């Protein structure tokens, strides 16, 4: 049976993993390759790296880091941040990443999704989106897409954007709730559910994970396929095993490697 994935997210800033709330107050957490190895050994199903300062500094993604991660770990990983064209995507994929993630770039230029899917296959192209609860009448779902680290409101409806992106060839959609991000109060299930029901591609819940029980909750109450974890494991407070044990206990299909005797 296909299992639900748990995906640690590592925000990389100047070559170090950092974590901040709503992109503010970043604290240093460690070396990306060492953390990738530890999470891979600890049972992560996949990893995602965001080079969070690449776009703001108008520089391409740190390919050296992508190569070092690819050399160190044997599970799939996605890379986002600092992607501005198909050639950037190609560099990341050739360096050994399984997927590239686009967010603000795709809002500005939706055609990049189709170009990337045509060049590398839809399974390589992840759309990241940052929806926020909104009373904007242009957004009938009640959620509006923000960009540039939640700074800009686009007037785009989150569910409509997800459908359009999937039609263009996005192979997976990461729904990162602005409202839940950094709160550790649990995933924002309403928008996750709406998008998981609206599109035919896998959906990843993101933002708000604070304790292991939040994972079985989002997998049972929405049709999402994977969920992102960050602060609660970066701090050392919880482990991936604890998350997976909670999923198993709740009857969610999960990959736990059988130990051989």
């Amino acid at each position, binding site marked *: *049976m*296909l*299992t*639900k*994935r748990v995906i640690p997210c590592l925000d990389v800033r100047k070559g170090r993993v950092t974590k901040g709330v709503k992109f503010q107050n970043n604290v240093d957490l460690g070396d990306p390759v060492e953390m990738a190895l530890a999470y*891979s050994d600890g049972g992560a*199903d996949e990893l995602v790296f965001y080079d969070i300062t690449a776009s703001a500094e108008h520089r391409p993604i740190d390919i050296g880091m992508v190569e070092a991660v*690819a*050399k160190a770990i*044997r*599970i*799939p990983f996605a890379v986002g941040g600092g992607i501005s064209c198909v050639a950037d995507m190609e560099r990341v*994929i*050739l*360096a*050994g990443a*399984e997927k590239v993630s686009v967010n603000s770039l795709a809002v500005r230029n939706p055609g990049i999704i189709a170009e990337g899917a045509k060049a*590398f*296959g*839809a*399974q390589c192209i992840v759309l990241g989106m940052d929806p926020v609860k909104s009373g904007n009448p242009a957004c009938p779902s009640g959620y509006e897409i923000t960009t540039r680290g939640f700074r800009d409101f686009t007037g785009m409806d989150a569910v409509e954007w997800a459908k359009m992106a999937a039609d263009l060839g996005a*192979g*997976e959609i990461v729904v990162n709730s602005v409202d839940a991000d950094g709160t550790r109060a649990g995933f924002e299930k309403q928008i996750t559910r709406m998008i998981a029901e609206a599109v*035919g*591609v*896998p959906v990843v819940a993101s933002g708000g994970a604070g304790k292991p029980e939040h994972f079985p909750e989002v997998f049972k109450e929405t049709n999402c*396929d*994977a969920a992102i974890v960050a602060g609660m494991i970066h701090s050392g407070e919880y482990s991936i095993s604890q998350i997976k044990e909670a999923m198993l206990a709740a009857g969610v299909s999960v*990959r736990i*490697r*059988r130990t051989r005797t």
Partner: protein
Amino acid sequence: MTAIVDYGAGNLTSVRLAFAALGHEARVTSSVNDIEEADRIVFPGVGAAKSAMENLVRLGLVDALKKAAGEKPFLGICLGMQILFDRTEEDGGVDCLGLVPGRVRRFPAAGGCKIPQIGWNDVHEAASGNRVPGLGEYYYFVHSYYAEKGPYTAGVTEYASVEFTSIVQKGGIFACQFHPEKSGAAGLELLKGWLERC
């Protein structure tokens, strides 16, 4: 020498790095000569079957691969497994290498299952009783098409209400639908076991 066949069907970095992690330097190549001289062949691939078959023809690799598959250890991965069969219904129907009898079909859209299947799924023993190493583990899958079960099916997996061939073995051919190179410790053990057997 282990030859990883490069025929323009996807990125081979992960496959090469997985062998390197086992201390085994494999050569990524499109050369008939390398395929003839290799001790073992790794035949990966992601993407579309039609362009993959066209590339094999264009590069003049079809005969060399067929010959190699009959003579030396041959590991097919993902699309590299699918095009070992007779035919796939992808791209309106494409004749494949015909090294293993059987057909490749698209997952049914009905039933609310997402296509492609992306993620970790388990592989278990096939009814054929054709036992191979690596059964009973989770591996990483990414695919929209699947090989029907047949006499050489050695491992099966379920998705979208279909039980399909996830490992096939026939003579020196060992092929898997999943990506051992991206399947963590279980995948590395599978590759290590294959290297040790051949």
